[in-house]
């Protein structure tokens, strides 16, 4: 019998190693896997590269991970916010590396990794600072920038319900990056509000099929 559930968030993140690339779901705090992040802080892995839309809000979740100085580099689209003071301080002190990626390129590059593409010509960013030094090409009269996949060793995501095969459904706009990050990481760990019996999720309504999920934990 295959059962991908683990007992605690600590168990789920135990395997994350120093220097790993970790995708973290969420758009602001919606969909942020707060309990998994807390467990990762307690676990102690360092020198992480984090992929997230933002760079933390307030002093919890991803911001707390930054504050604990576990993050070497962050790949995101929107670091600076009214409450991104933890990131701001590290960045101004030169203590964190930032790769700024337009949000659509971020999504697209994560999807490219999940789906096995080698690179994609995307329309976004052409002629801007964020395409500097990148290969460009005109195709049918439009300009494109060549962008490479972003893959990860681990993805930490939040879903609403999951079953022991790892099938997931989400809630409202907390869905955001969860499904595409799940496909782009070697090991995807989902925290869910509820683990349900196999068969409780309608097969027409599963958003993330279990093939993309290696572990899940109810929090």
């Amino acid at each position: 019998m295959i059962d991908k559930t683990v007992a605690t968030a600590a168990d789920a993140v135990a395997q994350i190693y120093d220097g790993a690339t970790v995708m973290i779901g969420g758009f602001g705090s919606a969909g942020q896997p707060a309990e998994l992040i807390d467990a990762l802080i307690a676990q102690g892995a360092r020198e992480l590269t984090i992929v997230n839309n933002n760079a933390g809000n307030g002093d919890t979740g991803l911001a707390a991970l930054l504050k604990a100085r576990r993050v070497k580099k962050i790949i995101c689209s929107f670091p600076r916010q009214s409450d991104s003071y933890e990131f701001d301080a590290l960045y101004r002190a030169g203590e964190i590396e930032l790769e700024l990626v337009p949000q659509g390129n971020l999504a697209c590059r994560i999807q490219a990794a999940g789906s096995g593409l080698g690179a994609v010509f995307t329309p976004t960013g052409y002629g801007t600072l964020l395409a500097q030094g990148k290969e460009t090409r005109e195709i049918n009269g439009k300009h494109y920038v060549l962008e490479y996949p972003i893959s990860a060793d681990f993805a930490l995501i939040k879903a609403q319900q999951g079953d022991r095969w790892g099938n997931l459904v989400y809630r409202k706009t907390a869905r955001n990056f969860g499904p595409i990050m799940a496909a782009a990481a070697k090991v995807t760990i989902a925290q869910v509000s509820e683990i349900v019996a196999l068969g409780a999720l309608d097969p027409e309504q599963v958003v993330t099929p279990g093939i993309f999920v290696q572990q899940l934990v109810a929090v």
Partner: protein
Amino acid sequence: MTYQPLSRDQLAARVARDIPEGSYVNLGIGLPTRIANFLDPEKEIFLHSENGLLGMGPAPAPGEEDPELINAGKEFVTLLTGGCYFHHGDSFTMMRGGHIDICVLGAFQIAANGDLANWHTGAADAIPAVGGAMDLAVGARKVFVTTDHVTKKGEPKIVERCSYPLTGVGCVDRIYTDLAVIDVTPQGLLVQEMVPGITREQLQAMTGAALQFSANCQ
């Protein structure tokens, strides 16, 4: 002559008038978000938010906020009957694949050729953040920009060439300022409307690029 610039609400209301029923629309963070308040409630217009919803409704009643139902500005919102949720990949397929009819963005500068700068001042100590602005700039069928006509210091925001880092190249279709409505055309900037009382010369003096005027602008 004397004239009164549009208030922020008047500017939002002016843009709202140009959004036809049935349009799929993304309203950027800031003033563009306010446009939603002025859409004709009799018209069905589909508001898209890049964090994964279509059919976005107004702010919830106090006490009914849901932290998992937010917009791209991370404000609490609601979902209309008939709206739906989707992931970021699908959301940006909508934005980049030409499925959004109109997006409305703010601006630091707009150039005469439609270049837009709205994400980064270029200052050495600035922490840049881009979000979905570059995607909307290249992906929406029509890109509207709302802006004050001049900066707080009185400098033109409509310029011959942007000095700030670009968001998109030649992407702007129409500019709504507190003084005028200006189309970006292959022949240059064409003023379609001006606030009452302003002269063509006054408007041109506050604009960093040559303006042309349609017949209905005295």
